[in-house]
């Protein structure tokens, strides 16, 4: 699910022990700020590459059935990176795409991950037939760790959602959510904010009613800011030229807010700095996790500006209501 959900887990935000330091760099040069990895707390996997059964109009890495620029990971590839992650002390595993359940080995991949730690899958919930949900419930019950399903849904009505995610996706997603709820999952429903701030309370209320109708009466909700790259840049206006992270902006900034100080993304074609910058030249940091953790992130892209502004709100933790 390329609708974001990125950024550091709440457990690492609001750090009381002092923020990180930016690597010293010549100031004034055009060189973008570089930030080292502080700890590999989150390991992300691009399990279905850029392949998705949907083609959402806001997808920030432009996934679709025919975007094959990144291909599926095999269970073996994921297992190798999982093994590499153990001595690095990774805290959480995240699975994204494209649509992870396009990957036929997805349940096996989750089984391997859940032996080692908690797993979160970012899904559009349209490929969750009964037997997949049963298998997920079996995996969750068999692990000491939590399996989180983050479901992207971008509106409280078919009109609102389908305008962004495509005809019929609201109904198909809600069917998937209903099955998850019946299997006693507590999915985190994630919406990209496509409305003015003043509407947020009303829309959260709408989500809560909608979900209560399928038996989900303590809905976990999460609103995320749009990333103005990929399809979203075409849908809206993209970033203004001044929207970049500069050295000055990082003075006194808590670097733990940026996912790239806490995470790396493994793909079928190497390890990348973060799940947002897939198609950017600087983003590929190495062939192996070992190489990629040793290299700093370069905050060279305009998407970094969104992380800078919104970093801490994007985590598994949800927003239940407005205040």
């Amino acid at each position: 699910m390329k609708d974001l959900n990125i950024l550091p887990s709440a457990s690492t935000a609001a750090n009381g022990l002092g923020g990180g330091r930016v690597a010293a760099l010549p100031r004034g040069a055009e060189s973008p700020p570089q930030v080292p990895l502080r700890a590999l707390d989150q390991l992300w996997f691009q399990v279905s590459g850029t392949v998705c059964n949907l083609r959402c109009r806001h997808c920030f890495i432009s996934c679709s059935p025919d975007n094959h620029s990144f291909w599926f990971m095999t269970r073996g590839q994921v297992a190798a990176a999982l093994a590499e992650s153990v001595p690095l002390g990774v805290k959480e595993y995240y699975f994204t795409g494209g649509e992870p359940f396009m990957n036929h080995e997805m349940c096996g991949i989750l089984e391997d991950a859940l032996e080692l730690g908690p797993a979160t899958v970012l899904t559009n919930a349209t490929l969750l037939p009964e037997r997949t949900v049963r298998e997920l419930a079996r995996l969750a019950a068999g692990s000491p760790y939590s399996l989180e399903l983050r479901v992207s849904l971008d509106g409280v009505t078919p009109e609102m959602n389908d305008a962004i995610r495509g005809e019929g996706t609201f109904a198909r997603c809600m069917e998937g959510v209903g099955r998850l709820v019946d299997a006693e999952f507590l999915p985190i429903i994630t919406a990209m904010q496509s409305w003015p701030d003043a509407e947020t309370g009303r829309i959260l209320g709408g989500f809560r009613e909608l979900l209560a109708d399928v038996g989900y009466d303590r809905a976990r909700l999460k609103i995320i800011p749009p990333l103005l790259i990929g399809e979203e840049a075409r849908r809206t206006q993209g970033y203004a030229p001044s929207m970049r992270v500069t050295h000055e902006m990082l003075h006194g900034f808590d670097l733990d807010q940026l996912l790239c100080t806490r995470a790396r993304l493994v793909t079928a074609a190497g390890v990348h700095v973060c799940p947002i910058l897939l198609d950017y030249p600087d983003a590929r940091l190495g062939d192996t996790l070992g190489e990629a953790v040793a290299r700093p992130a370069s905050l060279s892209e305009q998407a970094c500006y969104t992380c800078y502004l919104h970093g801490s709100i994007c985590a598994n933790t949800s927003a239940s209501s407005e205040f």
Partner: protein
Amino acid sequence: MAGSEDQFDRVAVFGGIYSNHLALAAAVEDARRRGADALFCLGDLGGFGPNPDKVFPILRGEGVRVVQGNYDDSIGRGLDDCRCGYTDPRDNHYARLAYDYAFSNTSGAHRRWLAALPPAIRFRLGTLRVLACHGSPRQVNEFLWETTTPSHFLTKLAADAGCDVILGGHTGIHWARRFAPRGWYVNAGALGRPANDGRTCVWYAMLSAEGGRLGVDFVPVRYDHEALAREMAGEGICDEFITTIRTGWWTTCLEILPSKERARGRY
């Protein structure tokens, strides 16, 4: 670091007290009766409960060794926020109510005492090297839940901190795991509020060591929770918190829970 030379065989470990002076007094008595050589508290003395000044005479009078929590650091330094690390607006709303009440009802002398607390205490339990901290050895407000904390992550935390056993709190739900032959993580839970299990008792950890072997027992503490609820109501503390004391179910701070911990609760 404070207490680095101390060695014990049997210690009681208390998690967040959240101003629950009745549970604290009951736990101290229970731990003494069970033969604890030393009592530890892992911080977060205030918040949630009534009359925050009441816990200090108990802690000091009983010689409880206290680690500084995020709450204590915030109150001690006069920060405007508890830095519990919640991310949800409703959770933050209740956290703010609790913090503002605790802040305005903690005396200046007690604030200075909170500010002077150590962020961690090291000691020996049998031959095991123990680090007592609040959230994690690396971050005062890091949440270490049972279902989101991999064993290999604990191995790395302990190696980085140079200890065998990590004692922590901050989350309010007790659990323990042995992650290596001598490696343990023990979350002491909280004395201040029930463990979101529908029971009104609260919990602490009793640890004993024979050489390098650690024994971990979680001990339920029954106390006069109705008296606490009445005192909270008398102080104008919000009903959501009082409901938790009376029912054993959390009503706030829920969005930070991983799905398995959330699913065990009622809300």
